[in-house]
């Protein structure tokens, strides 16, 4: 293992992202400011205005145009990046689908923030959860270090010719975006080498020629055509196949990155924490996993067999990895920092219950909606969830499958 000398910088999550983008030799950044993502574009603007990067920086008049410009820049052969949050991501909604449908490997950071109304600038996952069906790979970082590492890995994953799908890296508003942490960073040339130059796959053109998959005057192709019932369905199916291929490639890129960084996040898709012999477990994403790990340690010290499963990647959903990781767990609490109104619990809860239906294991599962609009999720509330799980373990009964926790009743 060749470990590379890394420097420790004090960075907020947003700054760590901007630094990773700076080092990844991005050709085009198009972005529009929105709290709490602003620091990413502000720092990146400084790199541009101080001549530290060659990037074409397009300060668009909206998020809709920001993502559009990244999409067409990527279609022209460029490496592209944008960042947004909340209402900005919602405004991009239409273009999210166009981006994945055009197989444009845009990388985007989302600083997870609640959706209006009432207007709220603080953390929850509603903004990116509503986009889970848009055929974007979704990473959820636990801290600033992981945000830095994931953005670098994201370019390799999105641009992989076997994937060619846009990729989102999420970090929690303020808890990560604005919190100063020690972040280990590589020298520029290490990141440049790891990310490499963008590879453009060859495709068969309408004239039957093998041509690069980009807008190239020497080999003209038509992108984004009118595509109805005779081919559209196959094209959508191809997107799903690319998503499934991503599972393996995300793990490979994560392994390769570990070789230079010494850092791992589980297997790259999921991160089990003291889960091997756990009887009760929480499943969550994002910064809440940090607090949960502390609580798990406290419970373990008292002899309680508690564990945690953090999903690092939510799309594609690592179904088999999740099932395998939970094989010894008897009662599970799924924490959702978003809610599907009128449904039976939050989106992660739905999917975990759903994938376990056909699994050889049948643990009890309860869902907790927490932390909407930035409401804190302190240790005592996580203890409360583990207490509930212990009761379920004792009684072998789930009284109430869906809870709201930390809310005034």
């Amino acid at each position: 293992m060749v470990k590379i000398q890394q420097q420790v910088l004090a960075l907020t999550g947003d700054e760590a992202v901007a630094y990773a983008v700076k080092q990844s030799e991005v050709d085009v950044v198009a972005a529009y400011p929105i709290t709490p993502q602003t620091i990413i574009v502000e720092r990146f603007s400084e790199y541009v205005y101080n001549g530290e990067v060659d990037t074409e920086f397009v300060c668009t008049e909206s998020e809709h145009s920001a993502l559009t410009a990244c999409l067409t820049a990527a279609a022209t052969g460029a490496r592209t990046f944008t960042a947004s949050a909340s209402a900005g991501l919602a405004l991009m909604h239409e273009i999210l689908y166009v981006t994945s449908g055009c197989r444009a490997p845009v990388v985007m950071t989302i600083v997870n923030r609640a959706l209006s109304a009432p207007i709220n600038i603080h953390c929850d996952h509603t903004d990116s959860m509503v986009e889970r069906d848009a055929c974007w790979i979704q990473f959820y970082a636990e801290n600033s270090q992981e945000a830095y590492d994931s953005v670098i890995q994201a370019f390799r994953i999105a641009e992989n010719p076997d994937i060619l799908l846009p990729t989102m890296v999420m970090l929690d508003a303020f808890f990560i975006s604005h919190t100063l942490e020690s972040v280990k960073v590589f020298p520029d040339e290490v990141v440049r080498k790891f990310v490499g130059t963008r590879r453009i796959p060859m495709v068969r053109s309408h004239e039957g020629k093998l041509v690069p998959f980009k807008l190239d005057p020497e080999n003209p192709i038509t992108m984004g055509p009118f595509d109805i019932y005779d081919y559209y369905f196959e094209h959508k199916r191809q997107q799903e196949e690319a998503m499934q291929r991503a599972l393996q490639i995300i793990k490979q890129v994560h392994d390769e990155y570990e070789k230079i960084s010494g850092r791992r996040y589980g297997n790259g898709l999921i991160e089990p924490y003291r889960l091997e012999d756990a009887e009760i477990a929480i499943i969550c994403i994002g910064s809440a996993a940090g607090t949960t790990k502390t609580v798990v340690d406290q419970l373990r010290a008292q002899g309680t067999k508690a564990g945690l499963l953090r999903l690092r990647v939510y799309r594609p959903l690592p179904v088999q990895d999740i099932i395998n990781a939970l094989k010894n767990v008897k009662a599970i609490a799924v924490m959702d920092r978003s809610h599907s109104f009128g449904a039976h619990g939050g989106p992660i809860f739905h999917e975990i219950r759903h994938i376990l239906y056909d699994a050889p294991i049948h643990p009890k599962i309860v869902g907790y909606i927490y932390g909407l609009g930035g409401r804190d999720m302190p240790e005592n509330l996580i203890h409360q969830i583990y207490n509930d799980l212990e009761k379920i373990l004792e009684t072998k009964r789930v009284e109430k499958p869906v809870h709201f926790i930390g809310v005034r009743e």
Partner: protein
Amino acid sequence: MASVRKFALKDLAEKPDLIMPGHRACAGCGPAVAYRQILKAARGPIIATNATGCMEVVTTIYPYTAWRIPYIHTAFENVAANAAGIEAALKALKKKGQLKHDHVDVIAFAGDGGTYDIGLQALSGAVERGHDFLYVLYDNEAYMNTGIQRSGGTPLGAWTTTSPAGSVIPGKPEYKKPVSDIMVAHDIPYVATASPAYWRDLIIKARKGLEVKGPAFLHALTPCPRGWRYDMSKTIEIARLAVETCVFPLWEAVNSEYTLSAPSKVIALKSELKKPVREYLRVQGRFRHLFTPKFEQVIDEIQRDIDKRWGRLLKKCGMV
């Protein structure tokens, strides 16, 4: 880039068509004629992008395409942002020595819906940022692709399916938005109006738009036989009448300085050549309801409005 403008009919016949026959546009489609003419103005490598609309649909029904140049469509309201992204990518790739060509032109096409209405924000943003591209508005004065609904570009009194010729309200009650003047107000290097009836003027303007550094805006009035309710053989005649009646005068604004183009300048110099608006309206079914005693005063209102706008334009062009 040095540029030789050879646009005699013979020269044009020798230039390859960049948009090919076999597309699914209606017989007599004004936009299809204008696209073919505009692309004759290409001076070298060029990338095209199109907003959602008739021309996007008819030229790219998968697995076929009419485009002989690289082309991308993404959505309806963002074609100027498409162009911005392409242009930014070309600049970045050139800096890194990854672009094979010294220069690649970028041309964006959108209809009136994609320009006057849903695409105006992206257009305003892109030209404010100074991207080097030519934006072509093909204006057939309604959402024709979805079945003739009114847009900000639909003229006063016109029937559309969302401004019907009712027994109380005779077609669209509002005026056509002066979108090209809005573009001039952005202080961009080149804005022009053009008509497929005056093909040489149109092609030269398209070329100028490609040649200037920075954003250029070309507004072509392109009649639609289905939406305007006239016989498909009359497209060019009606396009010409629009100019002859001063409903759609031809002008250009270089660095915001307006000048009349020859077909309209002739009328400015000899006002007896200016035909009454009535002649333009009479040949189109979309204005038929105005030729009834109940609503005839709307024709006078349209004439007054056209005269007022023509007068203003003459002042801007220093012709008064």
